[in-house]
């Protein structure tokens, strides 16, 4: 399982790529593996306000429905329009083609509270 060093992670297993203006959000390799085959993804519309810790979308595997939580508060600036047609990209490419939304954060410094790779791996080890 891979957890790229350039990303930050949440306790709910989202990953976050923090860039100057926008942050990109998806779910981690651990999360996609735990879910199994992803067959449905529901994402918010551009312009939607999201709140840190609140669900912004849904991923469904064959068997289960799971919420995806916003890592930071802000406004959705972009969504991955290809995911609803190819939800399996969440499994095959969780950090790349499987990205979900881009948020313009209200306060970029909120990202400082997220976990780095090492902390996230420790978090996973604890959950197991």
């Amino acid at each position, binding site marked *: 399982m891979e957890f790229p060093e350039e990303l930050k992670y949440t306790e709910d297993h989202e990953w976050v790529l923090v860039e100057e203006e926008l942050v990109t959000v998806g779910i981690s390799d651990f999360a996609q593996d735990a879910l*199994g085959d992803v067959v449905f993804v529901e994402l918010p519309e551009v312009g939607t306000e999201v709140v840190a810790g609140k669900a912004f979308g849904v991923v469904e595997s064959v068997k289960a429905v799971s919420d995806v939580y916003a890592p930071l508060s802000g406004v959705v600036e972009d969504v991955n329009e290809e995911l*609803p047609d190819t939800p399996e990209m969440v499994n095959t490419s969780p950090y790349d083609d499987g990205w979900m939304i881009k948020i313009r954060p209200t306060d970029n410094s909120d990202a400082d509270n997220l976990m780095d790779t090492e902390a996230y791996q420790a978090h996973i080890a604890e959950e197991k």
Partner: protein
Amino acid sequence: MQKTPLNQLHRDLGARMVEFGGWDMPVQYAGVIEEHLAVRQAAGLFDVSHMGEVEVVGENALAFLQYLTTNNAARLVDGQVQYSALCYPDGGVVDDVTLYRSSEQHFMFCVNAANTDKDFAWMQQVLADSQIEGVTLRNVSDDYAQIALQGPKADEILAQLTDVPLEEISYYHFVEGEVAGVPMMISRTGYTGSGGFELYLPPATAPEIWQRLSEVGTPLGLVPVGLGARDTLRLEKGYALYGHELSAEISPLEAGLGWIVKLDKGDFVGREALQAQKSNGIPRRWVGVRMIDRGIPREGYPVYAGDQQVGLITSGTMSPSLKVGVGLALVETASAVLHAEVEIGVRNRRLKAELVRTPFVE
């Protein structure tokens, strides 16, 4: 938690394990969709050793079975299997079962794992109340492991390990025979709708038989299959699962299983209630739901006709074969019209769906 004789093997194969009906069972190996499609296109190997078995033996075995079950057990011949149900006096379902006839005085039930103890107690109670003599009931669940070999390649795979003429075993029939030198019951039955066999074998021999089937089957596309794909396979075919489509609160008539309820065969437990239900009109019907909008119907989601809630989804999934959300729903009879458009309440939205006949997949 109970473990089947194949538990270690599943772990060695890297299966993800879950608790199911008190058993530690594999839910998936490579992935639900891959396993599902392998069964439809080639073959799959399932550990179903958690299923329960109850023997009914004695000179009045048939008379007792006629009173206990809803289907007509008198129509079984030696070596034949029958799908049937046990009902409560009010018509609710104790369990859905398969009944195997070895001889006129020797039958065996295969029952749902989680219901084994309940079913056995119920059978004992009905036997005592019926005052039928000369019948012995034995819970022989520990005497059998069960492996299901399912899919279009099942015959070709099994034939490599047995001299039994498999082509002579018809659908819902079984024989006693040897597979890889081990005597067992070979039954042409299953829960996938893709053909194949269910093997009832001594628990100690199960790991070896599993391995041998894997060896000869893998080159033909055989893969191990977990409970995840077992559920999607049965759902695509519209097969009922106890606790979802059938329960103590749902009668077999409501569940579309009128064909296993033989009201004219003579008295049986639940007959009066089921007869009344049939005469007065069955209030709810079981129908297939196929999504029009993108989305997946899940158990417990409401079904709407206009503003009115008319039913509930009892099972649902994304069909791996159709790549469309499908489900089974219990719907008020007046609204259970084929090809009617309904709405399913999915989270905070209403999604369009069509009521359809099952199976979803031929």
